């Protein structure tokens, strides 16, 4: 698994992830999100959830993708640990993601719950291609 770089934000939690493609960086960001909440590598991929979202920019799409996963955690009772995303640029100002997340019901003894994410902020938000690597930076309100 690609490493998650944790940022030094004074009040909340931020992370940077790198991906080989825009799809990969969305998947890595989802993993980073759940790593703020649980021991993400201990989550078994038992149940799938699919989502389809659109937004006017990649940054907005990232916020929508991650905030949807946060909501689904409560709506389904699952924590997620494995992700697959397909991101498309439909038009100049419209991006779409079709994403799958796999997880299981939370078990404190295995998943070691950490922080509850209250929201995905725009502070310092980045989704960008640098050279041949995609990079995402996200700060979440806990």
């Amino acid at each position, binding site marked *: 698994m690609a490493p998650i770089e944790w940022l030094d934000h004074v009040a909340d939690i931020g992370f940077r992830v790198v991906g080989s493609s825009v799809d990969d960086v969305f998947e890595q960001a989802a993993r980073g999100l759940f790593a703020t909440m649980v021991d993400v590598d201990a989550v078994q991929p038992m149940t799938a959830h699919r989502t389809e979202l659109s937004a006017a920019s990649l940054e907005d799409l990232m916020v929508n993708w991650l905030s949807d996963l946060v909501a689904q955690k409560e709506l389904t009772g699952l924590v997620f640990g494995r992700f697959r995303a397909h991101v498309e640029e439909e038009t100049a100002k419209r991006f779409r993601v079709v994403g799958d997340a796999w997880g299981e019901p*939370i078990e404190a003894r295995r998943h070691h719950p*950490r922080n*509850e994410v209250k929201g995905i902020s725009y502070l310092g938000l980045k989704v960008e291609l640098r050279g041949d690597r995609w990079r995402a930076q996200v700060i979440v309100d806990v």
Partner: protein
Amino acid sequence: MRGRMRVPGIVFADRESMDGLLADDAGETQWSALQQVRNVATLPGIVTASLALPDIHPGYGFPIGGVGAFDAEQGVVVVGGVGFDINCGVRLMSTPLSRADIEPAVEAVGRELYRKVPAGLGTEGELRLSMEELDELLREGARGLVSRGYGLDDDLEHCEENGRMDGADPDAVSDRAKQRQLRQVGTLGSGNHYLELQIVEDVLDSAAAAAYGLHTDQVAVSIHTGSRALGHQIGQDYLAVMSRAAHRFGFETVERELACAPIESEEGRRYLAAVACGANCAFANRQAIGHRTRQVLTSVLGVKPSEIRTVYDIGHNNVKFEMHRVDGVERRLLIHRKGSTRAFGPGRPESPEAYQRFGHPILVGGTMGTSSYVLRGTTEGMAKTFGSGVHGAGRALSRKKAAKKYWGETVISDLAARGIRIWAHSPRGVAEEAPGAYKDIERVVRAATAAGISRPVARLRPLAVIKG
């Protein structure tokens, strides 16, 4: 950026804090609290100044400890001035118990509170509501729960807004926000939320303390939590709505979290109606946990329920219409307080009748192992900060640094050695919330006193802490 500020920025802080703020400002400006003070000052309709209080640290759009007042007709309402945890706040409850009564029973009471109050990621409340019942809760707040038997009428009389914000419209809240909340009523959450069994260690203003029903050696309980998933989803939903609104109205916001719309616009009105729902959800949440705490103290120690009183319940992430005197003229303003409480001085109609002489209590939460404070507002503070006060110590270390520096189990055992028992669902969370990760609350309270915006009334020390 400085050239676009419509009003000055005013920061109340001691010298050491100010040096730290200036050092951050000279470096990475997107995470500079002073830059956020400047950014708020650019917003349309802002009145007098963009303010920040002694517990200032970087937030989202607004700094934490930030206050912005806007003309009720010409100004805007700003999502970042409320944040994701709408009406996060503190409820303080007093008991007839003394230190001698509680010390033999701390373990039993703490264990029962840990068992009975759901806290931490993934936990659910006992109340199971239908969507219609949740809509009722969003309209009625704590009042709705009291009418269902979850508490006493006296609780509402000692609650900001009497436990119910006017203007709540459940139609302004998404179904997703409501569905997320259905199982979270009465849950504590995690992070910096807590339930503490405390002792009133020191009374610093005997007349005000007596009016608040507090005395030395008294056992009290503090509950710090907010609007849970519903508030979080409202914040997330309206960040998008208000971003589009800002674009529609031609507002060039410096930061996305300062997404805003005119107060008098359709988007502005709907956001305020949704925020009122979030506020009522938080009041109801603290009412439910307060009621459960009352039940535990009754069952473990035989205290009469009516003798466990709500001293006050106050929020620190809110937006409210208030009348204030500006340049000699009474004006209706929309006051955003982000990580800041109301701190009204004597004689304001918003304060409970029993507290009119001194103003309502201001509840300033500590963190595990540190003191909490009860303060009171001042007439001077009404003029300086639109009657706004501090809410807590503010963080000094990032969660990353705190998790590296502290080990949860060690923090728990160190505090136990000092007579403070911790029950926590997340040892890592305990590390991140270690006392050393926060600024010195004594300094924050001293700075607020020196600035003339509040006066200390009582200091409370924790005996037992429940964490998510």
